[in-house]
């Protein structure tokens, strides 16, 4: 049974899809939601089995499943997991039940909504575990459609514009990705059966001339940079996040953006290490611009959801900066930051959604004084804000710290600039919290209810994890490090010589403690 745990985890939501399709319109909305919720919970449980079976002694892929799919074109069903994708899968399966719970108040076309959510989960988890390039691409493309429908069907006022923009940006990027994949594929045919197997393509890519490798690098890079999103390809993100329904924003920020960053590590660095080094400065500059630019834009926003969206641009810039420093700290920090950003920003979007549900506005100017009216909600909001700012003791701190340290050792400039952005983050997040929670209460907001049981059930796990990973980041890094070390050793062997541990030994408590 557990031999196929990756397949089971990936396709478990399909069971829910089948039930929902089979049930047709006979299912009441409540039952539909319940089925979706139970399916996602079951998927989360299945993914816990993966963690249990994960062997930290292995830096390569584990639990590999391999079956020929379309023999004549060399497409295979090849799944595997390593220290990076492990947490990406977990993040997805963890956020998914919360996103379903957060959608409990959806009333329009509930069945179709939940179908889109479940199909989204399949394709996202699939893209994290696929090791066959074409299989990855299939999942990568497939995840567009449900997300597109979620934004366009259940979003805000400008939802159609946002959905189409999201789709076209990503589609344009992935056209180049497909081209690059097919190019590699045709090269692999030189010696026998052409293949999309990542493991064999690594050696194929190694045999390419530097110029070709750089072009292919760019083909992959554009697709993932759109997804991350990296400046200047980020413009779809603010619209998509703002217009998407709460669950859509949570999953976009929490999971979909990570597919881009994950792709950079998994494919760009693995296939084209030389080209990656060649473009490292270029990418780092874009990342730093994104960090600062995202933060500045966030400061200027009056729409709280848009503000959080721009903060994502900034935070994801950290991730890419860390990855492209090619140091062990930077790489580990980048991956850690991917998980942390998913939790912290996911929580923020959930909370923004809860505020919106009550006040029906996202304009900071029309909010205020919520700390007095709904103290628990405001408290939770503050907690998520602190996490996102990078307060020591909460999860984001270690990630950002490692990224900055890892980058600093390579370039003082990039490290310093990134550090400045941490201050900017404090400005926009704390300032927005101030406008939201303090000051005079608006008349019509006086009688707002505080958090309901359902909302506690949504917030408790995510805020709890923020605290846990803040105090004990080793829970994550122990499994991440073997893989990131291997990646660094491959891309930049000189940096891998450094024997110092990425984090201090286990006994030492993590920096700071909970406030």
């Amino acid at each position, binding site marked *: 049974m557990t031999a196929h745990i990756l397949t089971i985890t990936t396709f478990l939501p399909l069971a829910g899809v089948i039930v929902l399709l089979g049930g047709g319109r006979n299912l009441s909305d409540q039952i539909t939601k319940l089925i979706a919720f139970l399916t996602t919970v079951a998927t989360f449980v299945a993914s816990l089995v993966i963690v249990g079976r994960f062997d930290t002694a292995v830096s390569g892929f584990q639990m590999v499943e391999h079956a020929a*799919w*379309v*023999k*004549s*074109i060399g497409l295979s069903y090849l799944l595997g997991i390593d220290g990076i994708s492990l947490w990406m899968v977990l993040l997805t399966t963890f956020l998914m039940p919360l996103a379903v719970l957060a959608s409990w108040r959806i009333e329009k*076309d509930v069945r*179709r909504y939940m179908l889109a959510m479940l199909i989204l989960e399949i394709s996202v988890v699939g893209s994290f575990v696929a090791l066959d390039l*074409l299989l990855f*691409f*299939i999942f990568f*493309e*497939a995840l*567009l*459609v449900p997300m*597109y*429908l979620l934004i*366009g*069907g259940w979003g805000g006022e400008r*939802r*159609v514009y946002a*959905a*189409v923009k999201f*789709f*076209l940006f990503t*589609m*344009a990027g992935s*056209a*180049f990705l*497909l*081209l690059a994949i*097919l*190019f590699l*594929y*045709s090269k692999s*045919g030189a010696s026998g059966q*052409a293949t999309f197997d990542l493991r064999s393509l690594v050696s194929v890519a190694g045999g390419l001339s530097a110029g070709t490798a750089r072009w292919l690098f760019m083909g992959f890079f554009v697709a993932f940079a759109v997804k991350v999103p990296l400046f200047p390809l980020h413009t779809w993100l603010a619209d998509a996040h703002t217009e998407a329904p709460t669950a859509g924003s949570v999953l976009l920020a929490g999971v979909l953006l990570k597919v881009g960053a994950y792709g950079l590590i998994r494919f760009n660095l693995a296939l084209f290490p030389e080209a990656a080094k060649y473009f490292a400065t270029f990418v780092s500059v874009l990342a730093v611009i994104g960090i600062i630019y995202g933060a500045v834009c966030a400061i200027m926003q009056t729409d709280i959801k848009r503000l959080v969206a721009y903060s994502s641009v900034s935070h994801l810039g950290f991730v890419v900066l860390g990855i492209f420093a090619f140091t062990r700290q930077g790489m580990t920090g980048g991956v850690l930051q991917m998980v942390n950003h998913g939790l912290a920003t996911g929580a923020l979007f959930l909370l923004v959604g809860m505020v919106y549900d009550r006040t029906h506005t996202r304009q900071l100017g029309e909010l205020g004084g919520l700390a007095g009216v709904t103290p628990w909600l405001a408290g939770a909001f503050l907690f998520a804000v602190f996490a996102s700012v990078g307060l020591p003791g909460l999860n984001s701190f270690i990630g950002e710290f490692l990224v900055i340290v890892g980058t600093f050792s390579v370039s003082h400039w990039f490290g310093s600039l990134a550090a400045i952005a941490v201050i900017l983050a404090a400005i926009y997040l704390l300032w927005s919290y101030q406008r939201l929670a303090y000051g005079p209460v608006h008349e019509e907001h006086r009688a707002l209810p505080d958090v309901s049981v359902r909302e506690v059930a949504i917030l408790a796990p995510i805020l709890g994890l923020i605290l846990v990973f803040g105090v004990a980041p080793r829970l994550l890094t122990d499994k991440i490090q073997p893989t990131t070390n291997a990646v660094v050793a491959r891309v930049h062997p000189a940096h891998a010589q450094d024997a110092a541990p990425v984090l201090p030994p286990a006994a030492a408590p993590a920096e700071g403690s909970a406030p």
Partner: protein
Amino acid sequence: MIKTPVFDVWTILPEVFLGGFAILGLLYEAFAPRSDRRVHLLLAISGTFASAAAAYALWTYSGPPTAMAGMVNVDRFSVFGRLLLVSIAAISLLLGTHYFSRDTKLYRGEFYPLVLFATMGMTLITAAADLIVVFLALEILSLSLYVLTGMTGRRGSNEAAMKYFLLGAFSSAVFLYGIAMAYGAVDSTSLAALAHGLSGQTGNQSIALLAVVLLLAGFSFKAALVPFHMWTPDVYQGAPTPVTGFMSAATKAAAFLALIRVFDVAFQPLTWNWVPLIWVIAAVTMVVGAVFAVAQSDIKRMLAYSSILNAGYILVGLTAANSVGIRAGMFYLVAYAATSVGAFGVVMLVSARGDELTSLDTYRGLARRSPFLAAIMTLFLLSLAGIPPAAGFIAKVEVFSAALHAGNWSLVLIGAITSVVAAFVYLRVVVLMYMEEPDGDGERDTAVWPRAVLAIPALGVLVLGVVPGVILKAIDAASVLRW
């Protein structure tokens, strides 16, 4: 050497069945006191089944590659073509029957024999081993299609038929001229003789090149390749929708299969000369198809430009000029056929009874009015856009990788970019269906059985997208041209 005449008419038994049942249908129409569409349907469907069975029986044939005194080829390539075309015809016949049952004023019993005759021309063209047979088959299918286009007698329909006929006649003349040139080059119209003559340098190369250009122009017209595509949007829009579906899927398949055979057999020695030519046509076709599709406000015109665009993609695969490219093109034809027949079927059901409501606005809020139609239309549009898990994705991967393998990466780049443009076009329809509210509750077609018929291509698109292996193996075997 004089061949002893042999009785090998069974090698064209599929065509015999199609023609035979068509004649039965005509006789019935002529002598029955009252034409009943059910009798017609029964006859025509029996014809397609008999033809399919006869074609399938030829799959295991292992005799000489040509039959009927060197006029037709007997190979798996032609069996593949026949099975594909006959399936398209069968689905179109069923959809057409529903179309007539909605509005009996439009009913013409000749629809059924004409579809069979057109199919006969199409299947024959895929097996033709001689340019004269190619021409005959081309005329059989063209003449039937002209009549089918104008059959309902509505103004748009008549205009489309006239346009199609005039331009089609012109292209036939060009094609015939090409045959004359080919004959001038090697003193024969047989594909095998052309191949021998041209490879042995005995033929006149420059006249042969002229033949290549003229024949390509003729095929381009049928396959709707730029710059011979002008008729496509008007004819697709004007023709009765089931005919449009049939035409878009089957004519394209037949034209491409014939093009593959003529160019990869007869003009194989001139590969280096014609590949640049189709390279350019492919590039222009993709760009024009994608760009013009954006500007359309009528779903049939939009699908017409999409059909032009897809013809360009198939041509991209053929620039490889090898069996990989042929295989890719064949798979694409199957995927496109299922998609196109299905999409036009949905268009037929969505346009309200009688008049053809085909403006894109009709699709506003379709997901609410008819969730099933909206769902399968989405599937077909995803397939056209080349998004997994629909068949169009694997098809695009196949043609692109074939062309890349042959080193035509810049053409593939154009293909990738145009597919993004096209995605926007298809997306617009999905937006209308799912994200807008219906305007009013126009009269709807709620018939169940045409929906059941449409489930066949929908299932096909899904199966070909998820487990393309089921058919790729057969296509692999069929992609070897015998001559």
